[in-house]
């Protein structure tokens, strides 16, 4: 479980996070949704401490992250797997080496054990074996994202944070990624937070949804409630795609 209380963050006088309070549950996929520029990435980066918040508190379980020393934070971060919006693979390493990096750094496994784990994680994100020896520059953007997910889960982290894991992916692969994230979240009972502005993902895996707009929490709920929410801004966001208005109307009339 991750809990944030009254987070404020501004850049040069421009408020980006405005009093955000939220709880992200364990064993569920918690989505942060909102328009581009609403502050999703800043919120996620603040939760992991890549941005220092101006005020407010962040808890991992009962541990107060905001009060921690940098050494304590470093230890806690080993429990976090994170997928950045741009993938952020190490471009001096191959695909396999990228996924192996956390294993090399933090485990004492043998080379064969490591390779088994790498194969397992890359298989789960549908990366073929012969791609393993390529460098990140040689694979497509969508594949980079998937490799980044494999790297994030390689140490079985109790916390998984993904910043738009399926933006830039085709609908089919996007669904595979969603299912994967959902699968590992429930299977290993981890606390997952996913940033997205993709309504398909919302309807697919939205156990718990936090809608933010201009740095404020506008609405919280889940994927069944979202179609019937009364919040105007949320309605604009959800029904920007007509298919969902149709879906709601169909459900209302019991089709």
């Amino acid at each position: 479980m991750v809990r944030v209380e009254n987070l404020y963050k501004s850049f040069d006088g421009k408020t980006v996070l405005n009093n955000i309070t939220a709880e992200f549950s364990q064993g569920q996929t918690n989505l942060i949704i909102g328009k581009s520029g609403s502050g999703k990435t800043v919120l996620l980066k603040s939760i992991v401490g890549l941005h220092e918040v101006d005020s407010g508190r962040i808890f991992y379980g009962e541990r107060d992250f905001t009060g921690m020393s940098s050494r304590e934070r470093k230890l806690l971060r080993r429990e976090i797997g994170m997928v950045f919006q741009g993938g952020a693979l190490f471009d001096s390493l191959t695909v396999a080496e990228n996924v192996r990096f956390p294993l090399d750094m933090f485990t004492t496994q043998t080379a064969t054990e490591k390779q088994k784990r790498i194969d397992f994680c890359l298989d789960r994100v549908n990366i073929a074996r012969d791609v393993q020896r390529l460098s990140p520059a040689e694979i497509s953007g969508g594949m980079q994202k998937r490799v980044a997910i494999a790297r994030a889960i390689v140490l079985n982290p109790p916390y998984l944070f993904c910043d738009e894991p399926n933006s830039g992916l085709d609908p089919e692969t996007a669904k595979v990624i969603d299912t994967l994230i959902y699968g590992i979240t429930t299977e290993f009972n981890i606390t997952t937070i996913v940033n997205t502005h993709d309504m398909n993902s919302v309807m697919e895996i939205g156990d718990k949804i936090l809608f933010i707009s201009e740095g404020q929490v506008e609405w919280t709920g889940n994927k069944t409630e979202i179609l019937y929410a009364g919040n105007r801004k949320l309605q604009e966001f959800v029904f920007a795609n007509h298919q969902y208005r149709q879906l709601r109307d169909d459900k209302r009339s019991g089709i």
Partner: protein
Amino acid sequence: MTFLAHTGRYFALLGKVFSRPERLRMYTAKLFTEIESLGVNSVGLVMILSSFIGAIITLQLSYNLVNPLIPRYLVGLANRDTLILEFSCTIMAMIMTGKIGSNIASELGTMRVTEQIDSLEIMGVNSACYLIMPKITAVIFVFPFLYILSVFCGLVGGLIVGPAMGAISAADYLGGIRYLFVPRFVYLSAFKSLFFGFLVSSVPAYFGYYVEGGAFEVGAASTRAVINTNILVLVLDLILTQILF
């Protein structure tokens, strides 16, 4: 940012760089790659530049020191001392800033703007230590070797080109480079090159590590890194020369 703020942040970064590594084996592996990419790959450049400079100094002096009161062997001596005292040490450090320094700044800058540094931090790795310490260590380690290599190539360059152009006889030249030779100067300059190695790696690393923005800022940081490092090398040269010689 003011000069003072930069200085403060530079030393704070060094504090992060020189802390205990998470896993030593990963760092030593990286050290060897850095020695290769920053050091061994610079050998060719050092050899070419130094040979030419040695040859050119020899020619210039031979053609211009025409006073019959000045013995010919002084050409060799002057070439040797120029190389030993300043060229192979200080000027070479400034040239290496253009090669190694800009490389370090742009590599780290790119890693910063593509969130690779953030990825390391999130994994619980001290990114400054992991990325920068091997570079600084590698450059400090290779600099004295590059210095010796540069002196050697410069002397050989003069020896080949001087007599070949009929500017000076090989005997005069060889006599000159042995005349009044003070080994201590070599040791002191090699010692100085250790400090230059530190500057040439750590200052560009600082500029690259704290880049904010995108490709444009990475380019700008790389330029600033080279300029500032060169100035610092000269300032430090002044100070060390005053203290040591």
